[in-house]
């Protein structure tokens, strides 16, 4: 045989690898022989061509045939076991659906990637030295620092900065302005982020250069649609922001909603316009190196890692610290992925999502235990089927693959059913109250990410729990299974495994139930206790006079007039000004240095939440002063600066001392001294479940704030006052945006009560789902046990056991399993309650009441789940049972 012919034969044997292994095992040898025969008789070249074409044509066909056969087997097996399929798919669907719903919430709050091109290459640049509770400016960068980072680094293809502000916006002169969010951005913003306007252009580099020179704006798609009816000739028209006319030069694409998951800016304006839009505050923003309030994002240059970029910027930060010691001493910088930055900047949501994810994972685990348990008992009856099929020549890998196909079909079914449940959850989360006029949303939605997540979760669960039985099925003991007769005797290991699973299910569902009960009790405790501020009789209305129209002094005059007029309204008892109010998102941070305090290396200031308030605030808001005095009309710019702290701040910064008369440096390490003149009682500031946190009040007359909220204390229901107040405001300040007019009670009900209630409902739903799944698991096991023990029970009854005895025996077994689970669950609950107590005030670590209550409920549920199989066992006819064999 020629060299070529021999080579062709070898090559053909290799080519056979294209066929499925099983086909190859059956016919590979024959096919090589056939090739050899033809190789002997035919011309080489036509043979090679013919065989090549043949292989390419028939190999895919064989694969397809095999898959479709697997699928047919899987569908048949699923059809022939409707009970198994229904329980397994429903259990999984519940687990997957609950997880998908929480994922959609997590996605809306934390996970969804930025709506820009290649978001994975965009990182967050933030200052590090100040640990801040809100991270509003603690993680942010000043404009001069931004410029230095931009100009002195090579790690980035581009570095952008921006700041989202609440500004008054109008689209024509006749209608009153309304408050919205706008983002001040560097001129390279859209280009670096890869956001191409659907209409018009992005900013030119020159538009970022000279402060106040280029009054242009790129409006958001939503603004284009709502304010301009999607008019294609919108370019060149005018939007008014804080009284400044800006020419529309572009419209963002619909999917670009800004750099924050929740805030939806209505317009984008060059940062260089900040002085025009924000007055003195805007000039400070551009000039002061310690005005750290910009969000900075960078697109990494090709091949540069996050760590490399971080190292480079740290070098720049060290140089800046040397060049500008007054502002940059001990300042560090961090380059983080978008996700890392979000997790760090939003610890409350991160903790909440972490908790919900952990709890919902338990639900999925309980659901998977049901599936695993079902598969275990099925694999016992299946051993025979497998043995028969192996005996007639099916390969083990084929059987394993077929079981996996079955699992995949099940996963798909569960994933799709789960999506339906997730949809219910998503709709529930969409009712999350936000209670503000600003374009802020929690965009919970069922999108392709949730879809992928559910299918993935279904797949992982089924594979994780289907693989073990599949692999076991691949290795049965042929002879003994064939000998075992048709009874399908359960391997004792199978039942024991299932008992273990049920114990774990009960334990986990107790953990879930106890967690939801502990949270419910915690919130009840918190809500029934005084939240620490007045919730009734208060009307709130926010104002945003623009720096264009109002100097600081003019704004003060305006507010004095508004207050005087409001005091004259019927039933109004008192009126005060406040920058923010309890549970609002507008609370800001106060940075200060307590006198005589030694700061750790890398720290220059303390940062706490704070508020700027009028003298009457403490009376109006119902926050009692524990010592000292409230602010007075005499605390003005001309008099020494004063501050009021809460008890928590006093306890933290001056432990064991009287804080009255102590001093703070405000704003920076060499800021003005302010003397503490009062101590206010600590209350809830951000949300009702928070732990006591330090808080600093500063007087309105010593601040230069312009946007303030008027708080009216009324005799009786304050809601009817809103109309009168609106008329007053229109008369006194016709061109000032008034927004977020509502009663404190509404705010409290939505933020204070609504969100905790939603949280409790979510966790309670998880608890109930877990309980339901565990009960199904227990019921399934007991029913199975009874059916396996029919003969044994028959014998017991034949030799004298009464029906009550049999009933009791099965009940004892079921409830006994539950009790073991409850014991384990109680231990787990103790750990979980410690975690909850650290997150939600009102929850007490190790509180036995929720655990005991839920344990009782679980025992009752276990007894209910066992009663049907037990009574079936008690009805067994001994004669029939013994005849069965």
């Amino acid at each position, binding site marked *: 045989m020629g060299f070529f012919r021999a080579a062709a034969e070898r090559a053909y044997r290799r080519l056979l690898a294209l066929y499925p292994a099983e086909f190859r095992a059956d016919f590979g040898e*024959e096919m090589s022989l056939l090739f050899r*025969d033809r190789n002997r008789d035919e011309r080489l070249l036509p043979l090679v061509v013919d065989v090549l074409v*043949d292989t390419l044509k028939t190999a895919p066909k064989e694969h397809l045939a095999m898959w479709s056969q697997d699928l047919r087997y899987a569908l048949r097996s699923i059809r022939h076991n409707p009970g198994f399929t229904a329980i397994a798919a429903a259990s999984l669907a519940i687990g997957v659906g609950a997880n998908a719903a929480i994922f959609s919430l997590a996605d809306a709050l934390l996970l969804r990637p930025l709506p820009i091109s290649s978001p994975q290459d965009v990182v967050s640049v933030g200052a590090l030295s100040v640990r801040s509770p809100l991270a509003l400016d603690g993680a942010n960068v000043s404009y001069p620092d931004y410029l230095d980072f931009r100009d002195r680094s090579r790690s980035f293809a581009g570095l952008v900065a921006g700041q989202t502000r609440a500004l008054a916006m109008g689209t024509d002169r006749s209608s009153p302005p309304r408050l919205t969010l706008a983002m001040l951005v560097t001129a390279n913003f859209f280009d670096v982020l890869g956001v191409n306007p659907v209409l018009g252009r992005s900013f030119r580099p020159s538009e970022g250069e000279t402060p106040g020179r280029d009054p242009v704006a790129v409006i958001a798609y939503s603004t284009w649609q709502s304010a301009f009816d999607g008019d294609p000739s919108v370019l060149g028209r005018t939007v008014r922001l804080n009284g400044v006319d800006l020419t529309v030069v572009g419209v963002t694409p619909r999917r670009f909603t800004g750099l924050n998951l929740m805030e939806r800016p209505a317009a984008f304006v060059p940062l260089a316009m900040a002085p025009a839009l924000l007055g003195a505050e805007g000039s400070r923003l551009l000039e002061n190196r310690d005005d750290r309030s910009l969000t900075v994002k960078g697109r990494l240059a090709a091949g540069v890692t996050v760590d490399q970029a971080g190292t480079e910027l740290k070098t720049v930060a060290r140089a800046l610290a040397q060049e500008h010691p007054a502002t940059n001493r001990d300042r560090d910088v961090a380059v983080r992925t978008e996700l890392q930055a979000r997790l760090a900047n939003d610890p409350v949501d991160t903790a909440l999502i972490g908790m919900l994810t952990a709890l919902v994972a338990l639900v999925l685990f309980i659901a998977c235990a049901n599936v695993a348990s079902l598969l275990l008992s099925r694999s016992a009856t299946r051993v025979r089927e497998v043995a028969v099929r192996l005996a007639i020549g099916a390969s083990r890998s084929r059987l394993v693959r077929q079981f996996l196909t079955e699992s995949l079909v099940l996963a798909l079914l569960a994933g799709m059913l789960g999506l339906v449940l997730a949809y219910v959850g998503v709709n529930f989360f969409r009712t999350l109250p936000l209670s503000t006029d600003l374009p802020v949303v929690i965009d919970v939605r069922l999108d392709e990410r949730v879809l992928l997540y559910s299918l993935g979760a279904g797949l992982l669960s089924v594979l994780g729990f289907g693989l073990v039985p599949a692999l076991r099925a691949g290795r049965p003991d042929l002879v003994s299974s064939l000998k075992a007769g048709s009874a399908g005797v359960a391997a004792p290991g199978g039942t024991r495994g299932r008992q273990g699973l049920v114990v774990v299910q009960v334990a986990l569902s107790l953990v879930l139930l106890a967690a939801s009960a502990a949270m419910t009790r915690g919130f009840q405790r918190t809500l029934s206790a005084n939240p620490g501020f007045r919730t009734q009789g208060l009307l709130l209305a926010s104002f945003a006079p623009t720096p264009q129209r109002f100097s600081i002094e003019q704004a003060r005059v305006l507010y004095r007039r508004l207050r005087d007029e409001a005091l004259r309204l019927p039933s109004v008892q008192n009126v005060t000004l406040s920058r923010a109010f309890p549970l609002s998102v507008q609370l800001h941070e106060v940075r200060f240095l307590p006198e005589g305090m030694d700061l750790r290396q890398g720290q220059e200031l303390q940062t706490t939440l704070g508020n700027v308030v009028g003298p009457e605030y403490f009376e109006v808001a119902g926050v009692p002063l524990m010592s000292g005095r409230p602010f007075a009309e005499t605390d003005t710019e001309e008099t020494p600066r004063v501050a009021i702290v809460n008890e928590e701040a006093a306890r933290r910064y001056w432990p064991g001392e009287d804080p009255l008369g102590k001093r703070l440096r405000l704003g920076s390490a060499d800021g003005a001294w302010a003397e503490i003149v009062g101590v206010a009682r600590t209350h809830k500031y951000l949300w009702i479940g928070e732990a006591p946190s330090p808080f600093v009040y500063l007087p309105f007359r010593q601040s230069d704030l312009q946007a303030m909220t008027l708080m009216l204390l009324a005799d009786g229901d304050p809601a009817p006052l809103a109309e009168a107040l609106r008329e007053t405001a229109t008369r006194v300040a016709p061109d000032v945006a008034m927004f977020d007019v509502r009663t404190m009670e509404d705010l409290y009900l939505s933020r204070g009560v609504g969100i905790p209630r939603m949280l409790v409902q979510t966790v309670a739903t998880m608890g109930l789902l877990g309980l339901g799944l565990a009960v199904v698991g227990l019921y399934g096991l007991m029913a199975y046990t009874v059916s396996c023990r029919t003969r044994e029970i028959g014998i017991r009854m034949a030799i004298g056991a009464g029906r009550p005895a049999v009933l009791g025996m099965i009940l004892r077994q079921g409830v006994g399993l539950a009790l073991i689970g409850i014991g384990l669950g109680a231990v787990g609950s103790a750990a979980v309650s410690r975690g909850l107590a650290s997150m939600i005030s009102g929850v007490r670590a190790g509180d036995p009441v929720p655990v005991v209550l839920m344990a009782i409920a679980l025992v009752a549920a276990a007894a209910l789940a066992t009663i049907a199989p037990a009574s079936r066992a008690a009805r067994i006819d001994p004669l029939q049972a013994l005849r069965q064999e």
Partner: protein
Amino acid sequence: MDPDQLLPLPPPVFHILLALCDGERHGYAVMRDVAERTAGRVRMSPGTLYGSIKRMLEQGLVEEVRSRQAAADDERRRYYRLTRFGRRVAEAEASRLDDVLRQARAHGLLPSRG
């Protein structure tokens, strides 16, 4: 199973059935038989041949001959033969084709016989 359910047969399957009508054969013999009968027009390449045989085995049209005495042949070769069901299917397909031909003649597509 009703043989009619399998009709019409894919051409390679019918050719293999025809080749096995006269007795058991191995793959190469089947291939050569088909090639000879069709004057080389129908080629049975390995993938087509064994893919068809695989399905025919599953459908019970053919079976492998396990106890072969023919020691002269290469031992590794597998021989196949028609099952009774396979023969019925082949007959059903032949009669179906006959029917088709008769109709073709009636419409003058083929010269009528005799």
